[in-house]
């Protein structure tokens, strides 16, 4: 029964962290190269610019939900099941979401990798 709870938590983690990753990626692309910006304008300018970005804040909210789902999941299942399963499934959903929402180019190589990772996840669950 706790196994079922663990997989429920994994599903919630995948959905919320995919939304979070896409939002954070878009937000940080708007901020620009952090290292370059820090050298030019100082650390506090970087922090201020990141914290005022709307996509970043929404991304953090999604990640916070994912984080608490992870805490629940980890109390129900092994760390070597919950963490690899949710993160690698997130890798696949991220490839799809990055293609749709961030317009990133996902080629054959990337899809094959997604299938390999999906196979790995099934093996982890055995």
């Amino acid at each position, binding site marked *: 029964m706790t196994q079922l709870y663990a997989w429920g938590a994994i599903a919630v983690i995948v959905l919320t962290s995919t939304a979070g990753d896409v939002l954070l990626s878009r937000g*940080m692309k708007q901020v620009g190269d952090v290292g370059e910006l820090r050298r030019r304008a100082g650390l506090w300018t970087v922090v201020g610019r*990141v914290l005022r970005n709307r996509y970043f804040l929404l991304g953090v909210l999604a990640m916070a939900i994912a984080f608490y789902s*992870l805490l629940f999941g980890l109390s129900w299942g092994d760390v070597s099941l919950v963490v690899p399963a949710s993160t690698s499934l997130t890798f696949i959903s991220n490839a799809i979401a990055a293609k749709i929402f961030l317009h990133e180019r996902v080629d054959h190589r990337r899809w094959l990798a997604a299938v390999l990772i999906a196979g790995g996840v099934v093996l982890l669950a055995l």
Partner: protein
Amino acid sequence: MTFRKYLVLVGVAVFAATGDSLISRGMKQVGAVSLHRLPDIILVVLDPGVALGVLFLLAFFACYMTALSWADLTYVLPATSISYILLTLIAKFFLHETISLSRWLGIVLISAGVGFVTGGPALTYRSHPDSAECLTASVSTRLER
């Protein structure tokens, strides 16, 4: 890609694996959290192991955000996947979890898939104007400076 940028990617992987492991160890000490004892999940942060884990995950987040500011999401995620291997080794040697043969095979498959992505010419992904919107955004922020 400079040496400093590779260090940031290594930081993402190391802090993610160690942070998750510390939190997992702390949660196992606390025991299963049930929905009708919801405050437990907030108070659990007072556990020193979990608190340190949260600190490590904050360091992970700073490295991850830095990486996302100069690399694609589909580049950063595969490149930092060395954390899978780290996590398995930590689970085996420090958390004393049993890792079955099929789970080891699963880790190998995931690593292979991830190596497939990072090994290819997709590394030069960023030089392609794959996202007109993102590109315009980064160009306009550059012009602002």
